[in-house]
């Protein structure tokens, strides 16, 4: 994929996620959360300056001067308004005080459950492919008010009918992929909410392992949104997870 295309996808995903935070009270991003980092940063700049940004290094409302490659980088701990440890953020979630959280899965199924644990070898009854583990998601997903799942890939191996192992499930708000946005119908199944402008219903349908219905296009990033991201991230850290 060329760099232009990567930037287009990254910007669209970031902006889409940032706009979902317009009414958020607080938002948590965990490990390996490159795009959520930019989305929260942008939402605070443009839409919701009072948004409380929670993260693993444990500084409330960090003020990074550049986008680090790691989302537990100490640039995120350098400045902020107060300190709150990871354990205490989990406690907030357990108390029902966490509003929005970003999570991701290697597999996301039509129920909004995801798998970050492993692919089982059904025959041998053991682990066939080991993933990273779900980090805090088993707690965060059912106990936060709204969870935004994000994934830089969108194919039939990612958007699956049913996860063979459920690492976490719970209070899904939106799924934002490289091609589209899903929401959940009631407490049940994912439905397509919008298709990113550079994609098509056909492309999304061909790359999703469960049935979908047509949907409008995702509103594209505005020039202002793009300019802010470009100024903050001239090196393109936000495309590092795109192949």
């Amino acid at each position, binding site marked *: 994929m060329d760099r232009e295309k990567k930037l287009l996808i990254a910007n669209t995903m970031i902006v889409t996620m940032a706009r979902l935070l317009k009414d958020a009270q607080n938002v948590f991003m965990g490990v*390996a959360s490159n795009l959520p980092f930019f989305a929260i940063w942008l939402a605070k700049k443009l839409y919701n300056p009072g948004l409380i940004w929670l993260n693993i*290094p444990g500084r409330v409302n960090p003020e990074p001067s550049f986008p680090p490659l790691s989302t537990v980088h100490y640039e995120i701990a350098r400045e902020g308004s107060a300190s709150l440890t990871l354990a205490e953020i989990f406690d907030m979630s357990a108390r029902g005080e966490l509003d929005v959280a970003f999570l991701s899965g290697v597999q996301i199924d039509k129920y909004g459950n995801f798998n970050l644990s492993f692919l089982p070898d059904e025959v041998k009854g053991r682990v066939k492919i080991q993933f990273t583990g779900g980090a805090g998601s088993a707690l965060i997903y059912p106990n936060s008010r709204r969870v935004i799942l994000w994934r830089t890939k969108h194919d039939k191996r990612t958007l699956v009918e049913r996860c063979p192992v459920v690492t976490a499930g719970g209070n899904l708000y939106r799924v934002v992929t490289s091609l589209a946005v899903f929401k959940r119908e009631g407490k049940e199944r994912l439905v397509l909410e919008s298709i990113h402008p550079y994609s098509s219903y056909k492309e999304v349908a061909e790359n999703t392992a469960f049935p979908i219905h047509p949907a409008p296009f995702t509103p594209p990033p505005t020039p202002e949104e793009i300019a802010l991201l470009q100024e903050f991230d001239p090196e393109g850290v936000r495309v590092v997870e795109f192949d």
Partner: protein
Amino acid sequence: MGKVKTLKEAASLVSDGDRLAIGGLLLQRIPAAFIRELARQGKKGLKVMKTAANYDFDLLSFAGCVDEIAAGFVSFEAEFGLAPNFRKAVEDGRVRFEENSCYTVIASLRAAAFGIPFMPIASLGNSYLVNKFKEIENPYGEGKVLAVPAIYPDWAVLHVHKADEEGNAVIYGPVYEDLIMSRAARNIVLTTEKVVSKEDIKRELDLAVIPGFKVRAVVEVPGGASPGACYPYYDYSSEHLKRYLSIRDHEGLKRYLDDVNP
């Protein structure tokens, strides 16, 4: 006998089969030099735990030092990809990965730190992890509550900014799970950027959160978290990490361990 020791002496306190809680998180403030020394000494059957790990658990998996890893997440981030030697060891059945939520790792350590046999936890919803833990009746209300067992590490291994000769230590910035590990563990090993005077610790008493009395060894290792970062002294080394991740076999690993000092 004083507590200030060489890396070699300190690592030799750890016995095969011991359970270790490893401080820091991902590439932040990990006791990397100590981890390498465990590998050099060919420890076997270690059980290690942490919320989110990469270099440390990947290297111990590669070197064949660990039997069991309990963690919520084992992977590098963005530029470095997954933790290849951890994955291979688990997929080959050489290491048992007890997947936890980061939260349940903390809850198990809290139970140990509080001296209670288990810790009730919030719902884990429909996660498969639920099956790893037992339910108990809520004596003060309706329904059942999930509980995780206390885990008492034999050792908490932590890298700190400053420690005095008695093991009283100061940490700057995020403490991650270091504090709760130091309370839960039976013994503590500290590697430190610098061994300082008692007076130096005293000047920052509010940050002197590790008391020395369970500390069995203090090892001065400037840069001891490298290739990880030690805020605010140094960042992680991409070059070093890429070198590590390019190692393909045990001979390469041995060369790496011989080369990197400490």
